[in-house]
């Protein structure tokens, strides 16, 4: 391989990206050295096994990836803003829509959700940590290694360019000879393993680590949704693992799974991809439903309407989500009976989703609603998501789908589902639980400004796409002629995208502003909330709860505050905590090297790092970790300090 093939060359923007990556890296290294923060970073963050810190690292990574994916999005909208635009060439456009999809789904939405799960779920069930804290750290570092590997593809070797669904035969070595799709198979594989481990970890945590009295039907709705999501993760991600492995074998070792000759079947890839891909949609949307349930209930000052039906509908969704995948390829060539079957299951899944919408509406009925920033996102979610859901039912009709399959109508539909469904939810959750983690609220005035920019601009960006799709504009076309008449609506959509970007700038500025000026909380419960995570102080001590809570009702804290059912009755006892470990981050780094070597078919480095992985795993198996014990005296001191009392 020549060096000019190794680095991506010939594009001024890519040179700019390279320069900024190098400069940012230097700035981080210099900054850390100058402020003598290396030790702090290693001790407090890189080696941590604390679920709250791991959650914060997930969310921070997700915010950075949101920025990266957002820049991709702006570039796509800019390129299509006017007919026959020359801003991007077709290859560059292909790479950008591919990485936009991958990053937003797998490296933004997933880690944001998993980050919030990490922070909130152990607190909501009254646990000290997740069931396997060190495995949790491994999960995070595998996700991070995968995310960095995919981002590196932008400047080294070239990004994947066959769409986020990477359909064969386009993604085969024959039609995509660059290393781009090798990055796809390896980056997703590495982070996917991390996600699978997270799923298992959270199933065990939620089923086995609940505080006394926290029966399954007393769990907060976000914990319920996390449980169901973890179950879907545990059983859907193995399918992705296999699909990606087969892709890797096809591209690196000459197997014939998805090829056009020797009996290979290119459509089998689409099949396997969506067997995982459709449950994946519910993996990112169910926890979001959980977040909205918590927020709507808190700010309506009412308990959640139809708790049992919420749970049942999530269980039904999780089962149905494995029965609908063929609706992603109605036009592939399977018979009418097959399409009919999958059409019916797809429409069926809108029933439990509809049940949830009505439950949220009834929760607010006659409630004392306060319009905080998280509540505004939740309120905007309901009508916008309903538009996404209704257009989804339109797409579910197989015969009608032939008309708008793979048009901008589809693009508009899934943005109308995923942005209010997931992005609004994680932003709302971010605002809602921010004071829990950091001890102060985000500024409400700036938060509401950002909300209005984001909510209005979202509709300006994506509503026109429905009409463009019905007029026949297909997705993923990098430019179009003036005669098509697509110009004006695309320009409007670009204006909306700018507004969205501005909204996100306000959001980020709000974080900076609030760190500087926001008043500090001394009470752990700034929203007058209902669930257990608000019963401990903010910021949260390492051991979460000084006394193991004893749960007596569904909204445990609310009942403690207003129904005289106290949660903390025991006395303080010494607490056992797991000790930090550097091995997860090292494992992540070796996995990164392993993936990178395989991308370029460098066999010797790949074998060396493969052996390295086995050595780290073996050394973990031989480790004797006895953890640390926090004494009663230390707990008392920490508790006093957190309550703002002087010692």
């Amino acid at each position, binding site marked *: 391989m020549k060096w000019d093939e190794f680095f991506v060359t010939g594009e001024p923007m890519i040179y700019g990206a390279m320069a900024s990556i190098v400069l940012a890296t230097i700035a981080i290294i210099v900054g850390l050295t100058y402020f003598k923060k290396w030790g702090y970073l290693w001790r407090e963050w890189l080696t941590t096994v604390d679920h709250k810190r791991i959650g914060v690292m997930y969310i921070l990574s997700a915010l950075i990836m949101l920025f990266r994916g957002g820049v991709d999005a702006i570039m796509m909208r800019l390129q299509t803003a006017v007919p026959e635009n020359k801003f991007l060439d077709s290859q560059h456009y292909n790479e950008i829509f591919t990485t936009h999809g991958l990053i937003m789904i797998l490296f933004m939405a997933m880690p944001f959700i998993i980050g919030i799960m990490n922070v909130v779920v152990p607190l909501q069930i009254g646990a000290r940590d997740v*069931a*396997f804290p060190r495995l949790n750290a491994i999960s995070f570092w595998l996700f991070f290694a995968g995310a960095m590997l995919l981002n590196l593809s932008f400047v080294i070797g070239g990004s994947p360019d066959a769409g986020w669904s990477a359909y064969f035969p386009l993604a085969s070595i024959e039609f995509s000879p660059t290393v781009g799709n090798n990055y796809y198979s390896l980056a997703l594989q590495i982070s996917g393993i991390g996600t*699978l481990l997270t*799923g*298992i*970890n959270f*199933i*065990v945590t939620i*089923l*086995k*680590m609940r505080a006394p009295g926290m029966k399954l039907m007393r769990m907060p709705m976000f914990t319920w949704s996390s449980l169901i999501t973890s179950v879907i993760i*545990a*059983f*859907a*991600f*193995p*399918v992705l*693992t*296999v*699909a990606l*492995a*087969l892709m890797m*074998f096809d591209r690196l*070792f*000459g*197997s*014939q*799974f998805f*090829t056009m*000759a*020797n*009996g*290979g*079947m290119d459509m*089998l890839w689409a099949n*396997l991809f969506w*067997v995982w891909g459709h449950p994946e949609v519910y993996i990112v949307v169910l926890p979001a439903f959980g977040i909205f349930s918590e927020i709507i209930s808190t700010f309506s000052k009412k308990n959640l309407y139809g708790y049992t039906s919420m749970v049942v509908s999530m269980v039904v969704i999780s089962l149905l989500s494995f029965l609908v995948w063929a609706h992603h390829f109605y036009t592939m060539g399977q018979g009418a009976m097959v399409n009919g079957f999958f059409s019916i299951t797809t429409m069926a899944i809108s029933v439990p989703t509809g049940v949830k919408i009505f439950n949220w509406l009834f929760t607010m009925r006659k409630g004392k609603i306060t319009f905080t920033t998280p509540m505004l996102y939740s309120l905007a979610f309901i009508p916008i998501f309903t538009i996404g859901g209704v257009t989804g039912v339109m797409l579910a009709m197989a015969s009608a789908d032939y008309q708008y399959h793979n048009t901008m109508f589809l693009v508009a539909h899934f943005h109308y589902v995923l942005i209010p469904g997931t992005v609004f939810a994680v932003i709302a959750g971010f605002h809602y639980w921010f004071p829990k983690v950091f001890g102060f609220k985000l500024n409400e005035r700036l938060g509401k400004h950002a909300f209005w920019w984001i909510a209005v601009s979202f509709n300006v960006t994506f509503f026109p796409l429905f009409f463009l799709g019905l007029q026949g504009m297909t997705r993923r076309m990098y430019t179009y002629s003036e005669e098509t008449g697509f110009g004006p609506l695309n320009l409007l959509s670009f204006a909306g995208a700018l507004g969205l970007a501005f909204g996100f700038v306000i959001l980020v500025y709000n974080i900076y502003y609030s760190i500087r000026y926001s008043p500090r909380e001394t009470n752990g419960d700034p929203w007058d909330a209902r669930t257990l995570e608000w019963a401990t102080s903010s910021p949260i001590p390492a051991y979460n709860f000084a006394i193991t809570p004893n749960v007596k009702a569904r909204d445990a804290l609310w009942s403690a505050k207003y129904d005289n059912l106290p949660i903390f009755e025991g006395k303080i006892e010494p607490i*056992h905590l797991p000790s930090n470990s550097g091995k997860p981050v090292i494992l992540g780094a070796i996995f990164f090297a392993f993936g990178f070597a395989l991308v370029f078919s460098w066999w010797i480095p790949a074998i060396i790092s493969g052996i390295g992985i*086995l050595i780290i795993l*073996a050394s973990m*198996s*031989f480790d*004797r970790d006895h953890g640390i014990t926090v004494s009663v005296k230390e707990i008392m001191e920490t508790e006093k300090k957190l309550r703002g009392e002087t010692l």
Partner: protein
Amino acid sequence: MKIDATKPLEYGSEENSNKIFGFWIFLGAEIALFSTLFTVYFVLVNRYATGPNGSEIFELTGVLVETFLLLTSSFTIGLAIHSMRLGLKKPMMIFFTLTLLMGLGFLGIEIMEFFTYVHEGASLSTSAFTSSLFILLGTHGAHVAFGLLWGTSILIQVKRQGFTLATANKSFIFSLYWHFLDVVWIFIFSFVYLKGLM
């Protein structure tokens, strides 16, 4: 660490029983993984293009020996756990070693079988059928190979430390893994080899 004396040592602490439970979930995920590999195999089994099909390359004798070895090793790992529950360290280690040796034998025969296939003109890149065959058998074989490394490291720990909360737990989890590989093999035996030879 609180030890619950009413339960076998491998379930003796909360952490231990969490690990066993978590491993069961992992096995559930493995069921989904092997099901996907079977899906690929079943869809592609008749797409052998110009290469050989199953009945032309499968040899019943080798497969029967592999099956016998794996079934017997599943029996011995069960006996190893039984001895462990009786607190008998030496029999446990003998049964455990026998298990690993039979796993090694299985793997040796499988590798020889792969060489024969390639020799007969059925390599990974011959056809969609051979690709799916190799990936299904190979994934199972890789699990066995990983099991050998893992099992050896557990055996060393049992020898050094005897039966503790940690080693008993690991040995039990390893036995679950090994039995599971046997279950997968039964389906390979029936629906790949026997069905292919039909």
